[in-house]
């Protein structure tokens, strides 16, 4: 242990000995980060913790709008060249100044992280060159027009090149960078010495399965957060998490079960919630007549018929699901992203009309209905298993006898990718906060090499949609791009290539005297939790 951490530990002991309870915030997390290495795993759980310690050039506000962070300004010089102006006078936790060298080092390390379960390199792929005009001006070149570069740069965690052991000059080259020195392993970031970022909090302790402790960065360049010390405890089961809040073990919890919210509010706890960017949808097998899990159709795949797909959509009473199963903590969905987020058209939600649905089935030649298996995870989305059963009820009522096949998320996702379900329910959260994210993954024709249709195991495909989407992906002008995205989305929704069900609402529950602005990306950001109690004045 170094002298610095020893003094820090002593200081913390002194503070807690004085019983400064109001200066400490304890948060119950629903899942634990897989690593303290901010570039290890592209996972919401990791990102929401790393944002306290490591910042990015650009930050996302609660509505996923972009706002300056370590970059004060960014602009496209031409279709493939961007200039970022970096913030001056920022210091890392280890006292070294923040310069363009740190940015180049950080972006260079992203593809080099070993054993990453889900790499951030998808967000650095388009970068072909980076060079520093001076210490605080950075030029980035991309391999083609990439309107999403600013969004993508909000996922790059900026590390301290010095703390990570880089050489004095770091040069970007397309096949591996120069001057990287010895790369720190992901486990090294469990130590506060390596985990040096520019964020409002510094890592103090990471004990897997038990807790993450952060202390305030007193030299932070931005607005100082309200809490001297943050303790985050993973409590993965919902019941015990609520119980921990009720008993005062934690001050705040994320994703409380929606059925417990009335009780928490009755007990005087504060609940905040907002619409999330997560759409829950039904996806169907479009590839050929050889669909799995369908009976009573003489070997045909009824889902190839747009009328049948429309019937399925009209059979579903989304209002009832939202009200009865989701307890009001959801909103019926007509699109793949809640309006008014970027690229949405404000399209109306499909109305509940079982008579019309039955008529459509008859028109398609299935007046006697058929049998189908509906796949769903049972521990991934809010009340997922219950929602799937409700959908099965509604489909059965119009004559599509539906059997629900529920399994745990890991099993479900691998079975889904093996095309085992004729129809399945899943969710998609748009990390970029705009329409190209769900379109690229869910409805673009399957082309894994181009990163398209990777979550389209039903193999829905429409060439017109593909070409419009590809055009949108290289259009820098925001208005024009939004138009193109709306057009592509409308094609998929018009022929019911995908059936949106609802947008989840995310809730947070906390003791009175705290406040948190709910976020569409569902992140629990400790530094954004405000102390609004009277004790805050002393």
């Amino acid at each position, binding site marked *: 242990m170094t002298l610095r951490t020893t003094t820090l530990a002593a200081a913390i002991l002194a503070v807690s000995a004085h019983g400064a309870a109001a200066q400490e915030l304890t948060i119950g997390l629903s899942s634990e980060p897989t690593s303290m290495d901010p570039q290890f795993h592209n996972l919401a759980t990791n990102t929401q913790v790393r944002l306290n310690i490591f910042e990015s050039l650009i930050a996302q506000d609660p509505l996923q709008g972009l706002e300056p962070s370590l970059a004060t300004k960014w602009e496209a010089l031409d279709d493939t060249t961007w200039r970022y102006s970096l913030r001056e006078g920022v210091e890392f936790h280890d006292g070294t100044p923040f310069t363009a060298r740190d940015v180049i080092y950080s972006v260079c390390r992203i593809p080099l992280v070993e054993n990453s379960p889900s790499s951030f390199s998808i967000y650095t792929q388009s970068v072909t060159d980076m060079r520093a005009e001076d210490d605080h001006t950075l030029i980035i070149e991309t391999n083609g027009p990439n309107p999403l570069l600013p969004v993508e740069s909000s996922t790059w965690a900026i590390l301290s090149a010095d703390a990570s052991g880089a050489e004095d000059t770091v040069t970007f080259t397309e096949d591996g960078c120069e001057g990287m020195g010895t790369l720190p392993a992901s486990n090294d970031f469990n130590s506060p010495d390596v985990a040096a970022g520019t964020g409002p909090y510094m890592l103090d302790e990471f004990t897997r399965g038990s807790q993450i402790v952060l202390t305030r960065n007193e030299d932070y360049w931005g607005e100082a957060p309200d809490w001297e010390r943050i303790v985050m405890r993973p409590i993965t089961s919902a*019941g015990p998490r609520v119980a921990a809040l009720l008993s005062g073990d934690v001050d705040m919890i994320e994703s409380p079960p929606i*059925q*417990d919210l009335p*009780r928490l509010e009755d007990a005087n706890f504060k609940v905040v919630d907002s619409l999330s960017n997560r759409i829950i949808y039904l996806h169907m097998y479009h590839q050929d007549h050889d669909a799995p899990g369908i009976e009573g159709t003489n070997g045909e795949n009824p889902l190839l018929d747009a009328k049948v797909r429309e019937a399925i959509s009209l059979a579903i009473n989304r209002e009832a699901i939202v009200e009865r199963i989701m307890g009001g903590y959801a909103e019926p969905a007509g699109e793949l992203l809640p309006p008014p987020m970027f690229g949405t058209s404000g399209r109306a939600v499909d109305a509940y009309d079982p008579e019309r649905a039955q008529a459509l089935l008859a028109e398609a030649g299935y007046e006697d209905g058929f049998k189908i298996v509906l796949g769903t995870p*049972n521990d991934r989305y809010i009340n997922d298993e219950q929602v799937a059963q409700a959908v099965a009820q509604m489909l*059965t009522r119009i004559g599509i006898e539906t059997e*629900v096949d*529920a399994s745990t998320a890991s099993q479900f996702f691998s079975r889904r990718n093996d095309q085992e379900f004729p129809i399945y329910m899943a969710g998609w959260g748009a990390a970029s906060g705009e329409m190209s994210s769900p379109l690229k993954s869910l409805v673009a024709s399957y082309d894994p090499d181009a990163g398209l249709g990777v979550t389209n195991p039903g193999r829905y495909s429409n060439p017109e949609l593909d070409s419009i989407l590809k055009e949108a992906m290289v259009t820098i002008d925001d208005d024009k791009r939004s138009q193109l995205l709306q057009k592509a989305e409308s094609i998929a929704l018009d022929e019911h290539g995908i059936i949106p069900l609802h947008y989840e609402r995310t809730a947070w529950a906390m003791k009175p005297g705290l406040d948190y602005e709910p976020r569409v990306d569902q992140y629990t950001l400790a530094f954004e939790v405000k102390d609004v109690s009277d004790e805050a004045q002393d």
Partner: protein
Amino acid sequence: MTIVADSVEQPVHPKRVAQDSPVRRFARAFIEDRLAVAGLAIFLLIALLAILAPWITPQNPYDLAQLDIMDGGLAPGEASFSGMTYWLGTDPQGRDMLSAIVYGLRISLVVATVSLLCAIAIGIVAGMTAAYFGGRIDSIIMRIVDLQLSFPAILIALILLALLGRGVDKVILALIIVQWAYYARTVRASAIVEIRKDYMDAARCLALSHRRIMFRHLLPNCVPPLIVVGTVQIAQAIALEATLSFLGVGVPITEPSLGLLIANGYDYLLSGRYWVSVFPGIALVVTIVAINLMGDRMRDVLNPRLQK
């Protein structure tokens, strides 16, 4: 099991019925314990409910077309818009809890009984073969039994179901696999004792076939301990099925058994909708206690050491 029935229906001399019929003797000893009789009565009632389920329940809880989420989460005694009163409330899917519990009992009993019978059949064949032939066959069979009994039943069942997937048939298969070893061991133990007796030598001298000796002469004398182990095991099988369904690897979610009903309601306990979990829980406890009361008494009656 047919053998047991045979020995029960053996024509006996009318005058000697009172003294000699083992069944009569057993029945008389059994009814001395009032608790056991109560257990039997409750068990018969439950069995009757389960058999008659389709005719007596207000709703078929497994027919999705009869459910409506708009009726979900009603408290016990509340009526829905359609005018139907739900005496034990509804679950979030609008399933009538009363109907769901009766159907759940049906699944529990069917799963437990079918798996019990199959496991006993396998256990008898394996155990008697081991005892009768001895030597290497005995070692092989009994080492397999030892190996299996060294793992907790729930662990083996969980692994099997994770591989097989959900379904009533798969739960039955898993329960057979985890239970047969108990019967094999029980049958072998009593068969080894019987084999040393004179009547077995007599049978062998008559040059009867191995099969005939094993099933006509040896087996009927090994039955009492089997009945005792069977009654204890049937309660355990019901509990095991409930546990597996509670953990989400048992029956399909649209056809809930008691364990799955309890699991579904578990999420709603904190929010005050106790009925989704508590009523199926009570049904499960009552069933298991009733069977255990019967089983305890049977063990006392059939145990020669405890006889007066």
